[in-house]
């Protein structure tokens, strides 16, 4: 192990030696690889190495071809006029400077010879060539690769690339790679190292932390101090980042809960109906999405990105119609008998599940994601997937829409009137049975819409609804029956609390703890966070 740093030092020394005259040459030779190629036409290894480095700095295709040929032992030169040729697999020769075949087959060729030093500079040159490749993606990945390898031999190439780079993103990556190399390099000057630590500290992630921990082992106090300061800064940042990440995951989970529960907030919360078939409405929405996608896939593949938009109204209608059928067929005979309603709707849920199982089969169905929902982006160090983002946005949109319907439309007004005082509402000329049906249809329809969104993140199977039923009831009961805001707050609270508990207690235990918490909470406040007066309270 002791040998390693000295070996690295030796390599670095060689590299430095090579680069002595580089920046100047590089700038001059940048456009024209011909002069650099000509320098290879020698049997002096020193000269060849210098030529390779110079060649690499040009970043041209011809340079790449020549260096590749040299690495493969296919590069030849003619002593007389310093012409350099590449021999291809068929034995034909091509002039390395022009890339064209010479008029007559050249003679008197000697191979450009290799030794270990030359091979090393070839390797470095290859790295350099990708660092200055015209393709920005390649440049970026080369920079990232150097950041990982921390190979001191690439330092000159990095300098060259940095001098040429115009794109800020890649510049930053290159600077970080250079800083990483400097930190790993034992003989870099202290001032270099301190500025490298600053650059790495700005990166501020786990990789940076690992790198800075190596810098902390530095013998010079000033570097150590800089590294330690940077580490504290990054750790604090990571704690904050972690908290934000938990909050984001929690909000995302909370949105899922909100979607699952918000329909129930209408049927259970507003009407006081225990609808155990609520989860099956969600499932119907998810299967509607599946059917729509299958239809589009076979008939109009171009519209696939619109499948969710098409499925939304359909899911609302399907689930809403089933809801009306349940209300008119069963529930209306059971008003005022909540426990019986519970049992009857449980029966409905069994029948719906088995119907779907009979029609679509018991296996999970594949629901695809439209292109705008795939991928992710970086938000101040948080990786946010578009799918999750859209679910959150969608959940909020559904919430707002529902709030508007309840508070700003005449239907919503009638609904609230019936909820608060049924007989008075009836006396005022509101057709209460009609409102009951529509309210139940609205709640079911919303559940169907939720199914469209949940089909994107959950398995679409006949059991889809079952997995949400306990959670949804918990959200509604926790939030307070008959209150949309309560449902929103409860869903987000439970989501965030779940994600903060998970690292300490594990996913399952965290969930159990939350259930126990809610059970205890209901003892304390039997009407939930935000209690409301109305029919639900009287019953």
């Amino acid at each position, binding site marked *: 192990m002791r040998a390693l740093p000295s070996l690295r030092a030796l390599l670095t020394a060689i590299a430095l030696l090579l680069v002595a005259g580089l920046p100047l040459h590089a700038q001059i030779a940048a456009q024209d690889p011909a002069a650099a190629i000509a320098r290879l036409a020698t049997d002096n290894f020193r000269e060849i190495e210098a030529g390779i480095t110079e060649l690499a700095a040009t970043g041209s295709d011809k340079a790449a071809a020549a260096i590749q040929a040299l690495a493969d032992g296919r590069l030849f030169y003619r002593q007389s006029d310093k012409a350099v040729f590449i021999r291809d697999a068929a034995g034909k020769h091509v002039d390395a400077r022009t890339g064209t075949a010479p008029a007559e087959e050249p003679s008197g060729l000697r191979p450009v010879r290799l030794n270990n030093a030359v091979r090393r500079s070839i390797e470095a040159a290859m790295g350099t060539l990708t660092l200055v490749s015209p393709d920005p993606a390649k440049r970026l990945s080369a920079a990232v690769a150097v950041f990982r390898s921390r190979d001191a031999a690439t330092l000159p190439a990095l300098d060259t690339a940095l001098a040429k780079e115009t794109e800020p993103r890649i510049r930053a990556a290159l600077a970080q790679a250079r800083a990483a190399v400097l930190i790993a390099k034992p003989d870099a000057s202290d001032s270099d190292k301190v500025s490298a630590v600053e650059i790495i500290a700005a990166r501020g992630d786990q990789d940076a932390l690992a790198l800075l921990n190596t810098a902390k082992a530095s013998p010079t106090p000033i570097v150590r101090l800089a590294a330690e300061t940077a580490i504290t800064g990054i750790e604090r940042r990571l704690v904050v980042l972690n908290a934000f990440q938990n909050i984001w995951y929690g909000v995302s989970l909370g949105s899922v809960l909100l979607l699952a529960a918000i329909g129930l907030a209408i049927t259970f919360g507003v009407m006081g109906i225990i609808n155990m078939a609520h989860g099956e409405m969600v499932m119907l929405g998810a299967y509607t999405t599946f059917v729509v996608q299958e239809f589009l896939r076979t008939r109009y593949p171009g519209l696939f990105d619109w499948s969710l938009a098409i499925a939304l109204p359909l899911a609302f209608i399907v689930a809403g119609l089933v809801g009306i059928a349940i209300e008119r067929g069963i529930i209306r005979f*059971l008003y005022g008998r909540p426990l019986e309603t519970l049992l009857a709707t449980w029966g409905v849920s069994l*029948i719906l599940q088995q119907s779907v199982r009979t029609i679509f089969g018991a296996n999970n169905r594949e629901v695809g994601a439209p292109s705008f929902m795939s991928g992710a982006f970086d938000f101040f160090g948080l990786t946010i997937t578009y799918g999750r983002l859209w679910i959150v946005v969608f959940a909020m949109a559904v919430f707002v829409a529902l709030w508007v319907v309840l508070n700003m439309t005449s239907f919503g007004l009638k609904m609230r009137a019936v909820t608060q005082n049924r007989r008075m509402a009836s006396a005022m000329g509101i057709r209460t049975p009609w409102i009951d049906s529509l309210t139940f249809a609205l709640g079911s329809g919303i559940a169907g819409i939720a199914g469209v969104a949940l089909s994107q993140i959950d398995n679409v199977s006949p059991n889809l609804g079952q997995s949400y039923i306990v959670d949804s009831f918990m959200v509604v009961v926790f939030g307070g029956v008959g209150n949309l805001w309560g449902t929103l707050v409860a869903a987000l609270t439970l989501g965030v609390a779940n994600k903060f508990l998970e690292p300490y207690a594990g996913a399952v235990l965290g969930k159990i703890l939350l259930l126990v918490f809610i059970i205890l909470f209901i003892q304390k406040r039997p009407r939930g966070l935000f209690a409301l007066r109305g029919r639900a309270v009287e019953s």
Partner: protein
Amino acid sequence: MMTARLIAGLDVRGRIFLAVLALAIVAVPVLNLMVPPGSPFHMPTYLVSLFGKYLCYALLAIALDLVWGYCGILSLGHGAFFALGGYAMGLYLMRQIGSRGVYGNPLLPDFMVFLNWKELPITWWGFGFFPYAMLMVLVVPGLLAFVFGWFAFRSRVTGVYLSIITQAMTYAMMLAFFRNDMGFGGNNGLTDFKEILGFNIQAQTTRVALFCITVAMLAAGYLVARAMVTSSYGKVLVAIRDAESRTRFLGYRVERFKLLAFVVSACMAGVAGALYVPQVGIINPSEFAPANSIEAVIWVAVGGRGTLVGAALGAVLVNFAKTWLTGALPEFWLFGLGALFILVTLFLPKGIVGTLSDWSRRRAEARAAAPESRPAAAE
């Protein structure tokens, strides 16, 4: 003397029920053990265990009817008490395996060896001792019911709220028992039992004995529940069911009445679970599934709640239908069960026994009223 007084206090339904049980306790051993296997009257051993399983469900249904039918507490978590009793019995049976497991470890059950555990967790201590295990069959579900009920009834959580949190309770228990860290076998539960009290658990005679014990416990459970509901205590229970606030205003400590009924019911469910496990041969966390508890509710609803006998009848009928339908037309079982839920709540709110007794009472009244009304109609 006691028995005579008990039977004298019973109504017709109760007498028929006990007579059927007495017949079963005599006929089943005779048909299984005495009648040779070739005979058409022979009862195969698997049927004995199957009926034993139905009767365990019947005991669970009676327990549920005690709280739902007489006290208005619709518990959607009685499956949890049933499963806890089952686990208590399961732990005893696991300890009886001894070194006959696959790994041959004299102390640890196979799954613990597999999980690389070194010693028996504290929760398992004492379960090798049969009386302790039997005590736990009563204590564990009873304690859970006591704690849960004490909190719930004291803060006056009633109606559907109570139903929902009992459901959440059994759901939480299911998630907990699915965890390997709980030390109760995780996903796979407890199975591969060898013997109970030194008798081979697979043996025909053991099976018949288990069946007879189940019948006896069912009768005992019925008599206990019956004694509770016909006493003055039971009158208060019914009063609570029908008008909780009024009962409270009359000066009764409603939560204590409810709590006692709930705890007794949970213990009864625990006994049912304990008898279920050796006859079925396995206990796993899916017994805690909320769906199971709701299914138990429909047995009571089908038979007729508030009748006790009806609950037992409902459990046997529904489970018989389940066995038959899942065998003959597996696709249709859930349709059938779902339709049963809907039809019973809509058209048979009093269940079979309740409707029948209504019907016979109306006939009796009609007959009593007939002599006076008949001549009037003729003229």
